[in-house]
């Protein structure tokens, strides 16, 4: 169905009893041209781009649970494109531009809100580093503004400007950054993909790969039977190593838990997204009023989707350092998601050494903002068997060749990225 102001009015006048389903819950067919493993944002976006951009409509998305039940539903909903290294800068801006037209493309309200992303700086050295990053962004056609303290005081008077250890000196602002409604992103791609004939198959766990005599992947074994496939794409985030293992692959990835938090609802307080530059704390305010925030990953391998208290304390201390008044706000909920932490902190979108198997992984804790871009470049790779130009550096073999993309310069220690 097509959503519009008229469909909304019609539904309202009939007591909201006649809404059609947003997307079609399909049963598996015997064979598809492309099977995407993982019904999160990336998998659904990939299926939609395959159908809409590359004319491949015989596509299935297989999801172990329900769509959007992994990290698509466990993030802090931030979108931005303020990256500094070749490879990342262009890719995330591609994704940002797709966010800006997503709702029109999908005919679905994903509540994309370009309310700005502000990274605070707390020292002269950090100001210089942010100026450099802002310049990198502007050279690449991305908006960035370096704000000094007087400008910030007008904008956010409640910040702890005179903190004894980490005074707020200013910030780097990307006005086009912001937030989006995370569930609606998954639902929107499901809606649009389903309209184009993509089968979205839930409660369908992949348990193995079907290979021919040459080792080429020709299908998947699932909890709902064998499904043949011309090509298989993996977009399973924190489960990447487990699924790759079924095809005999070891990946440069560790799975770690990242916690996120939401407070009780309060009146409008924080206009955009803000990050603490001297620790790790980022916060925005949801349209329902809750402060949505997070910080570092816990730092140890985990598949448990829950974290521990020391990181919770650390995150809240970061928040208190820049916005002391939020100490009076009560925490409402807290959750954890499993991040596919790569060895250089950047993603992998590439063919694998196994013929017919394509990999989309290593998003660390930055996967949400990448959703539309990831879908486009992964669909490009699967449909054309060559990398999209904005994803050409996200190669699986870059760890062997040394062409790593390490924004933080931390080396091959995933829990430090």
């Amino acid at each position, binding site marked *: 169905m097509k959503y519009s102001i008229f469909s909304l009015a019609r539904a309202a006048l009939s007591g909201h009893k006649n809404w059609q389903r947003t997307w079609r819950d399909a049963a598996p067919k015997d064979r598809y041209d492309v099977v995407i493993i993982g019904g999160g944002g990336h998998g659904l976006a990939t299926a939609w781009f395959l159908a809409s951009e590359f004319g491949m409509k015989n596509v299935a998305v297989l999801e172990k649970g329900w769509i959007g039940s992994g990290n698509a539903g466990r993030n802090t909903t931030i979108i931005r494109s303020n990256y500094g290294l070749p490879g990342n800068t262009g890719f995330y801006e591609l994704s940002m531009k797709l966010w800006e037209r997503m709702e029109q493309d999908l005919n679905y309200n994903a509540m994309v809100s370009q309310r700005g992303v502000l990274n605070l700086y707390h020292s002269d050295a950090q100001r210089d580093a942010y100026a450099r990053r802002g310049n990198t962004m502007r050279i690449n056609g991305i908006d960035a503004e370096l704000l000094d303290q007087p400008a910030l005081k007008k904008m956010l008077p409640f910040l702890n400007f005179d903190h004894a250890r980490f005074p707020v000196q200013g910030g780097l602002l990307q006005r086009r950054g912001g937030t989006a409604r995370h569930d609606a992103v998954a639902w929107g791609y499901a809606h649009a993909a389903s309209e184009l004939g993509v089968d979205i198959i839930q409660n369908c766990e992949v348990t193995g790969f079907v290979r021919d005599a040459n080792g080429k992947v020709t299908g998947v074994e699932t909890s709902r039977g064998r499904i043949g496939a011309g090509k298989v794409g993996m977009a399973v985030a924190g489960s990447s*190593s*487990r699924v790759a293992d079924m095809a005999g692959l*070891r*990946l*440069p*990835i*560790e*799975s770690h838990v990242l916690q996120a938090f939401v407070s009780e609802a309060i009146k409008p307080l924080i206009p955009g997204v803000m990050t603490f530059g001297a620790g790790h704390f980022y916060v925005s305010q949801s349209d329902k009023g809750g402060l949505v925030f997070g910080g570092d990953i816990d*730092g*140890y*391998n*985990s*598949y*448990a989707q*829950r974290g*521990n*208290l*020391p990181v919770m*304390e650390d995150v809240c201390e970061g928040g208190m350092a820049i916005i002391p008044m939020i100490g009076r706000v009560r925490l409402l909920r807290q959750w954890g998601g499993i991040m596919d932490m790569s*060895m250089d902190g950047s993603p992998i979108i590439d063919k694998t050494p196994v013929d017919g198997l394509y990999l989309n992984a290593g998003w660390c804790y930055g996967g949400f903002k990448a959703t539309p871009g990831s879908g486009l470049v992964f669909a490009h790779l699967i449909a054309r068997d060559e990398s999209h130009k904005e994803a050409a550096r996200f190669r699986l073999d870059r*760890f*062997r060749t040394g062409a790593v993309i390490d924004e933080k310069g931390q080396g*091959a*220690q*995933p*829990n430090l990225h």
Partner: protein
Amino acid sequence: MRIICPFCGERELGEFTYLGDAKPVRPAADAGEDAVYDYVYLRDNIAGVMDENWYHGGGCRAWLKVTRNTLTHEISGVEAAAGAGARQVAK
């Protein structure tokens, strides 16, 4: 999650720092590129019980080998692992 340090007793997680999987062993100097690539970058990333190296920086400053289930965070064993942080070189 609490870790029972063999030297200090049961301590809270914040005292410990994680290094990672205890299985990778630094290859000998003449082992070749493949072995180094494997050691530096590839991980089993086990979903289940794994041995891992932790450092008790907030306590006795000893390296420990902790046996932990990554699906549940249950710790089934902790033992001293002197020198683990330096990563032993294969003989």
